[in-house]
């Protein structure tokens, strides 16, 4: 007889699929936030598995700030077409037309307008009562206490003190009109789990995750990609650096890391060695102590 024990990835997969199906069964209009990153790639694959052989029974939503890497947008369009997913792209045109940009507004304000506001508008426009996000609890301190079902009031805001207890695999999906739930099926996955699963399942990810020589501005410890007319400080110039992205966001706020890891096994090996947290290179999380938590209260994922 076989030993009936799951590997940790199988256990995580089973749990995530349970969450995806539960939401599809209990909500009227779910949507999946699709950020194009590695976590989204895994989340979409889990959704394909959960409903196979039927197509994913909800649309994907990408909040496009217009400051994403070109390679991300190309990947998005190709990937969604290949898997036959319904993709909604939403951009806060109004703010862009009014001249919102990260260089002028600073990251806090820019994020507020081009990400949080855009997200809330898109969710309201679609009448979505549940939105999946690919966030993981190991990403950042304030996420450690986040529920799998994160309740948001009618303004999309998160109140850390007013969250529902979650026991066993029983989730409370009751919301009143206008209220919604953000659902995090990858809550219990770590960055390493994500990479191991991508390798095991052969999941396509954006090439930006793999090391190659790229044009960068070296600013102190940070490597900032040269895209979207990033303004250079006096004395700075573009250099080719062997590097890769550890997490993907808007180009001005996504720091690259120096790395030789150009294959999945090398990334996983690097991951095991890493002594720095994943979001460290994200400019936005360092603006202020507890800044992620502040953003979430306002409605960020």
């Amino acid at each position, binding site marked *: 007889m076989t030993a009936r024990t799951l590997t940790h990835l199988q256990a995580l997969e089973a749990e995530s699929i349970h969450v995806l199906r539960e939401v599809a*069964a209990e909500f009227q209009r779910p949507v999946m936030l699709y950020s194009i990153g590695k976590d989204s790639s895994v989340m979409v694959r889990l959704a394909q598995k959960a409903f196979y052989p039927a197509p994913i029974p909800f649309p994907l939503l990408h909040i496009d700030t217009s400051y994403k890497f070109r390679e991300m947008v190309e990947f998005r369009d190709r990937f969604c077409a290949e898997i036959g997913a319904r993709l909604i792209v939403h951009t806060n045109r109004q703010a862009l037309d009014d001249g919102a940009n990260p260089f002028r507004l600073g990251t806090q304000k820019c994020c507020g307008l081009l990400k949080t506001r855009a997200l809330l508008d898109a969710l309201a426009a679609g009448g979505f009562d549940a939105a999946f996000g690919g966030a993981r609890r190991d990403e950042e301190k304030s996420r450690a206490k986040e529920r799998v079902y994160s309740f948001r009031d009618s303004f999309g805001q998160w109140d*850390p003190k007013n969250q529902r207890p979650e026991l066993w695999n029983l989730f*409370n999906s009751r919301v009143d009109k206008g209220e919604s739930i953000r659902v995090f099926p990858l809550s219990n996955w770590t960055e390493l*789990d994500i990479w191991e699963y991508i390798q095991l399942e052969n999941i396509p990810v954006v090439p930006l995750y793999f090391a190659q020589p790229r044009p960068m501005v070296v600013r102190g410890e940070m490597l900032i990609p040269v895209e979207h007319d990033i303004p250079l400080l006096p004395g700075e110039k573009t250099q080719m650096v062997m590097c890769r992205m550890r997490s993907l966001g808007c180009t001005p706020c996504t720091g690259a890391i120096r790395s030789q890891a150009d294959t999945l096994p090398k990334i996983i090996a690097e991951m095991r060695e890493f*002594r720095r947290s994943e979001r460290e290179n994200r400019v936005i999380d360092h603006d202020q102590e507890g800044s992620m938590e502040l953003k979430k209260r306002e409605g960020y994922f």
Partner: protein
Amino acid sequence: MSELLRFTTAGSVDDGKSTLIGRLLYDSQTVYEDQLAGIRKATKAHGGLDLSLLTDGLRAEREQGITIDVAYRYFATPRRKFIIADTPGHEQYTRNMATGASTAHLAIVLIDARHGVLPQSRRHAFIASLLGIRHLAIAVNKMDLVDYAEDVFHAICADFKTFIAQIGDPPGLQFIPVSALCGDNVVRRSARMPWYNGPPLLEYLETVPVAAERHAVGLRLPVQYVIRPDQDFRGLAGQLASGAIHPGDEVVVLPSGRSTRVHSLVTREGDLPEAFAPMSVTVCLEDELDVSRGDMLVAPGDQPMSTQRFQATVVWMNEKPATTGRRYLLKHTTQTLPAAIVEIRHRVDIQTLDAETAGELRLNEIGAVVVEAQGPLFVDPYRCNRFTGSFILLDPLSNETVGAGMIEAALADAVDGAARAVAISIEGHPEILWLLARRLVEAGHRVAVLSNQVLHVGPAGAAPGLELSFLSANLAGDPVRAVDEIFHQIVRHGATLEN
């Protein structure tokens, strides 16, 4: 490939829980440099590295100087991946610990070596075992402050064992003397306690059997979602609550009771020869049966109880107390039904573990209740199956999750539509008969009085499932107590009473 172990931590404030978790993460090299830099900055004043800051919480909590919830942490060794449900000790404790324990295989109970087993330690062990945790690691912490003394450790072990013996079906125990601050016996074996032969904490966590989450019952697959891309395909999707399933297996669909065979177990990567709990699966059946969400596929020879009424232990999680008669929504597996608590049998004093009478259950209280749902549920006792034995109660107005329950036993009446009846003969005490009839009606039983001597519970004509008879002598004197006793006999159903 490594396995997954989920554990929870329990301890009172200042027992050293944060330091212990910080130590586990730090010594197992799961702490990132930038996080360390963060805590170095925060530690500034006093010298050493304060590892407890690694598990420091949210801004709102820091401002109030308290931690309010369950936080999840992750670390891995080459053998296992660990998920820690960290539940800080304070007044919201019961609710948080129950939440953290609900998915855990194991609990670490911290005891301060200087203080020994306190009422809180008992409470922690009690909640852990109530939530079905089968392994307790008792970390006797701050051994450095008692000179690493063997006798202190052994006295605490003895004390704890005496107490745990009072809990029915106690979990397995592993006592470990540690110093979270100095790192003794956490990740590395301590040279300062050569008298201790057991494993350090991490080694124990890496080796304690996880597959031992053995269910005493067979196949249970609550249908979660029906996958129907076209007329030719109908897949029943759900997560196995227990047992295994193979193509060709005979299965019974509840509530219809119809049986059929498994045609295939479908996945995106091809059909499976076998699936087992807790996998999420998609099952195609041989016959086109009308199956929908809330139904359950079960093994023909080993079925759950189908009941609307059951006895359960609930942990109350809301400011608004639990009272009888109030309407709730009950979520059990993939079913959500209107339900009510029809009786509060007792409350457990979590300091002494004594049962005491109670008219309501307040926030963080634990009690034994009788629940009645508006339709049949397919249940197993919680100790046999965590998933078919658990439920949550929701407030239909506020939408909050107000209670969590563990089913102990299905109760008579309304079993799968087939009426159960109880016949009782009470000689010469008509007042008792009528008092009892009223009590039963109030508790939601259907009661038919067939004569002034035989009380028949259940629809008239149903054959008695239980016959009780009482001697007049036992009933004389205190009719109210007599009624109480008979009532409990009936709802406990199955107990025999000699007269």
